[in-house]
Structures are given as C-alpha cells and as structure tokens.
C-alpha cells in the first residue's frame, strides 16, 4: 500500500513545481467563467420559460466547473503512454508492484493536485466578487467533498481505460480527443446537464460521466437533496468499481499479449 502512497506523493511533489502553470490556469478559468456567466445571464433575462435551476444555482454550478475542470479525464496518462510507446513498460513490469494500481496512484495525483491548486484561488475570488455561493448546508458541503473524491477515482478509472487501450493502438491522439469530447459533453462541463433536453436525461443518467461533475455540483448547489444524493454517490462508486475491474482485466490481457508478442 505504501508503495502506491509514495508514488502519489512523488507525483505530487513534481506537480507542485509547476505553480506558474496553475496560476495561468486560474486566470484563464476566471476569464472563461466570466464569459459563460454573461451568456447565461442573457439567457435567463431573455427567456420567461421555467428553467431547470435557479440563476444563482446556475452561476455557482458554472464556477464549480471552472474550478474543477481538470477533474475531467481529457487525455491518456502521458507517462504511461510514453512507456508503452518506447517499451519502458518493461521497466515497470520488473517492479514488485501491481501495474494497474501503480499507474492509478500516479494518475490520481496528476488529477487531484492540479485541481486543488486551481480550485482554491477560484473559490476565493469567485465567492465574494462573482456570485458564487457557498454550499447550501454543512451536510451538503460534506456530501460534495465525498462526491468530489468519488469523481476523482472515477476520472482515474476512465483515464486508465483510455491508457490501457494504447496497448492495442499505440498512437494515443485519437483516444485522447475522443475521450476529451465525450467526457466534457457528457459530464456537464460544457453545458450543465440539467439544461440538456428531457429525452437525453435517461442516457446521461445511465452513463458514468455525470459522476465527474454533475453529481457533486448539484448536491453543492442544493439542486439535489441529500436523500436524492445518496443513490447518486452509489452511481459514482459502482461505475468506478466496474471500470476498475474492466481496466484490470484489459491490462492483464494487454500485457499478456505484449508478453506473447515480445517488446
């Protein structure tokens, strides 16, 4: 266990060296957040129809997207991809560690720490100045934290699947693009999911992607009550478990194929 924890920490120390990147990210997210909010403001003012969320909830949802955008799995794990491409995956196979969890723990650090580094300043700026609200209750805040944790695990499990697919397709660009498009559209990070048409809702509800953003954000804004949220947390966790199992199975198969076919 401590091997995976150390991998996570080591990756974290690497990422902390890139504070400037995080700062630039914050500025960009604030800028885009501002533009998005202007669009939704115009939309709310010009329409008299009932909207799925109140204006204040929508604004908060939008800021949460900006703060947590990097939680969306938008590309394969670059380090694992490189090791598959140049064959140094052999180095990782001579370690007494489970390759899946080794990559997973490294990927988790890569996912979580940049989010933390960008989210904190955005909260600090958007809450007092740009209409972002606090969680509706202390319980909702705790539920949100739990759900974000589940979202990070889910995101890693999805990234792992994409990365593992490289054992068959080597060039990762196509997979990364497909993944980025699917995950941003279906998680709610482009348009909040409640704004999608009714016929799309069952599909969105069934797919794993809403667990990345929509579920944690709606419990934060109070659009989903705590009672409604609990089964949604189950949705996140079950999907994560399923994707981890598929990923482990595929990785074992892919490595066996690598072993059979040679490096």
């Amino acid at each position, binding site marked *: 266990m*401590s*091997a995976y*924890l*150390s*991998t996570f920490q*080591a990756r974290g*120390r*690497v990422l902390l*060296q890139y504070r400037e990147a995080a700062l630039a990210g914050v500025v960009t997210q604030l800028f885009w957040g501002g533009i998005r909010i202007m669009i939704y403001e115009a939309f709310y003012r010009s329409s008299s129809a009932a909207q799925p969320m109140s204006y204040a909830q929508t604004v908060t949802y939008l800021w949460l997207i900006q703060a947590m955008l990097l939680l969306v799995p938008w590309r394969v794990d670059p380090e694992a991809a490189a090791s598959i491409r*140049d064959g*140094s995956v*052999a*180095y990782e*196979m*001579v*370690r*007494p*560690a489970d390759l899946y969890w*080794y990559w997973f723990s490294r990927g988790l650090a890569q996912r979580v720490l940049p989010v933390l580094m960008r989210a904190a300043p955005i909260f600090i700026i958007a809450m007092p100045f740009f209409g972002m609200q606090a969680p509706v209750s202390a319980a909702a805040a705790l539920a949100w934290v739990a759900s974000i944790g589940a979202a990070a695990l889910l995101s890693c499990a999805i990234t792992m699947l994409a990365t593992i697919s490289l054992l068959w397709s080597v060039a990762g660009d196509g997979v990364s693009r497909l993944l980025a498009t699917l995950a941003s559209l279906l998680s709610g990070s482009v348009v909040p999911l409640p704004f999608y048409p009714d016929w799309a809702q069952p599909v969105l509800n069934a797919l794993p992607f809403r667990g990345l953003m929509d579920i944690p954000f709606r419990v934060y804004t109070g659009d989903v009550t705590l009672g409604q949220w609990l089964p949604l947390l189950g949705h996140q966790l079950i999907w994560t478990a399923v994707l981890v199992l598929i990923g482990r199975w595929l990785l074992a198969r892919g490595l066996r194929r690598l*072993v*059979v*076919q*040679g*490096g």
Partner: protein
Amino acid sequence: MPAVVVQDLVKTFRVAERRPGLLGAMKGLFHREYHTVRALDGVGFSLQPGELVGYIGPNGAGKSTTVKVLAGILVPDSGRCEVLGQVPWQERVRHVRNIGVVFGQRTQLWWDLPVIESFDLLRDIYAVPQVQYAATRDELVALLGLGPLLDTPVRQLSLGQRMRCDIVASLLHRPALLFLDEPTIGLDAVSKLAVRDFLLRLQREQGVTTILTTHDMDDIEALCTRVILINHGSIAFDGTLEALRGRVTQERYLTVEFADGGAWRDEPDVTVVRSNGQRYTLSFDPRQIAAADLIARIAARYPVRDLLVENPPIETIIARLYDEDQP
C-alpha cells in the same frame, strides 16, 4: 548451486506480414498473414553466483529476449530457466524482488525529482526496511562518490552521472542478479571509465551476479572474463575472451619503428599490414613463430627504435565471428 540455469530455451514470435502498397495495406485490415520468427532457438548456459558475464551479439540476435525471459517478462515456448532456484515467470512479483535491471537507454529515476526522492520511492516500491535501505544506499553512494548529486533533480544530471545513479537505483533492494543493458551507451570517454570502474568495484565488493549486454567491446574487455555470444537465437560462443580470440584468429600484430636508415626487406613468417614512414605494422601467427623469436630476429637485423605487440582489436574478432555465423 548456479545462480542462473538456462537450457534449450525456445521463443518464437508471430510477426504480421506487411503487404506492399495501398491495396496490400487495405487487405491487411481484414486478413493478416503471419510468419514466425525464432528469437531464441535452443539457448543454454549457466552462471555461478558472483559472475560478471558479457552477453553479446548483433542487433536482433536474441539478447534482449533472453534478458526478458530471465526477468520474468516473457514466457518462453519451451526450455528450462531457473534464476536463484525459481522459475521467473511463475510468481513474477516474488521473482522481481531478487533482480535489478538497468536499461541504458532509459532511466528509472523520476525526471523532475531530486535523485534521493527516486531512491526513497524505490524503497517503498520494493518495501525495503528503512535501516537496511539507508545502509545500502549510503554504502553505494559512498562507493560511487554520488553524495553531492543526491539533491539534484535528475533532469540536471549529465548522462554519466545519471547512469551511475540509475545503477545505484537498481541495487537498492539488494538484488542477487543484475541485468545491465548497454550501461555505457552514449557516454563520453571519462564517464564510460567512471561507470566501468564502478562496475568493477561493485563486482569485487558486492559479488552481485551480473549479466552485461553491450555493443561496446571496451566494456567487455574491461569488465568481463567470460563472454557469451548469441547469434540467430543460439549460443555461438561461451568462454573466456582469450578463447574467443583464439577461436577466430591466432593473428597478432607487431608494430616496429625503425631508426633512421632502416628499410624493410621481405621477411619470412610475417606480412606487412600497414606502413607509415619508418613505422611498420606486421601481422604474424604465434603458432608459426613465437613473438619473442620474431622480436629478437627483427631487433638483430634492423635498427629498431620502438616495438609493440598487439592483439587484434576485439571489434575485428567479433565482426569476423558474426560473419562466420551467417547462414
């Protein structure tokens, strides 16, 4: 008990046949034809604990396939293979605790972190107890004089420094068997010497069984008493460097530099390979004439300023052996 036993190892790969042209490529999408390549075709050898053996051969001969089988990454089609009494591909995780690997072309260190943090990470991955880890690390670091580098991020190290850190990294869990895959590739002359010097010390003081694959024959000459040569998937030679020389050629070279006024006349038993002013390089066969006799004769007949007897460079020998082995 030998540290490594390999017998009749066979490994074949299926390689998809590429058909020429666009049409061929499209056909290949639906139906592929394969041919098999015998990467290993009955390889066998054994190593005693503490041996440092050079494992050489041309590109594609089966060197890295052998190393991967021994490391437990590849499963052979048939044959026996035991490393420290264990079959590598069974219980892979337990097996890899006993081996260390250095791939010269890659690094196992974290690019952005100080060296020491990569070491700490390996300690956790191999679950080495802290006391043992600290002792091993300090010993290796002192042996190699790496102390000043430990806090430097790996990306700032020179290739030679990085390679020495990589070798330490592969030894932190005290493996009984070490694979070095081209550890001097791309290094400048000084760094090469430093790495070789390090490996010799390691050999003397730690007695780690080591398999060294390399294309640098100076590595072999400096480090290995025993050489195993693999070509076309089978062992072409296994023995000492001297025996390898003897098998291919008995030829030796004598370089003579004459004092002013000396002029070469044809001599029996020798042929002139090169001449440059007063300097002649002669080749002779020590079975026909002993080096001492030849030197005495030349010295008696010519005004000699300088003399040097040489073996043919090992590159020449290896090149001949590779050629000899062509099917």
